[in-house]
């Protein structure tokens, strides 16, 4: 979602005679977009790792808390995922 709404675009257009203001706005959008992308990654990790680490069964079905093991699994899940990500990048770089 790196495109902004028409409403915002219209406001940006109203600054079009002022290139420095436009540059400032572009900067703001870039920073916000970067924050958004990182949050999206956290969303994707959460979905993946929750699916694999958190079990809902008859004994914990009403418990809103995570167990110690579940917490550890979530943390390790992110860590190993990033390890794999790094390894894949390296492997692709070396095979060039």
């Amino acid at each position: 979602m790196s495109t902004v709404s028409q409403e915002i675009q219209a406001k940006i257009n109203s600054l079009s005679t002022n290139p420095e203001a436009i540059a400032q706005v572009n900067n703001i959008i870039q920073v916000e977009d970067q924050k958004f992308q990182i949050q999206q990654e956290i969303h994707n990790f959460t979905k993946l790792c929750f699916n694999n680490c958190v079990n809902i069964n008859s004994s914990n079905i009403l418990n809103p808390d995570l167990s110690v093991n579940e917490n550890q699994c979530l943390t390790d899940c992110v860590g190993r995922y990033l390890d794999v990500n790094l390894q894949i990048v390296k492997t692709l770089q070396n095979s060039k």
Partner: protein
Amino acid sequence: MAFGGLFGTSASSSPVPQQPKFDSETVATILEIQTKVQEEFAIGTAKTLVDHATEQCFTKCLKAPYSVNSSGLAQDNNCVESCLAKYLRSWNEISKAYVGRLQQQPPN
């Protein structure tokens, strides 16, 4: 999605330029745009959370064939409630782990 950004070298947002002083109307417009942009991204983030939590809790709390009669609906609702609580706690845990990892090991 090789991670870059957040703490990357060139990522620090540009310092507010000293030279160009905008007139107050322009400043107001820029601030207005900033608020709008933040709102739109926040809506996008919330939507993703709702989508993902729905999918996870649907999968973990309900069983096929999904007829209303086949499972106690009250129990489903309770399950979904605690599932969402677990999901939000997971989000926080993952967020901490991810940011911690980015800090201890700068990209490249």
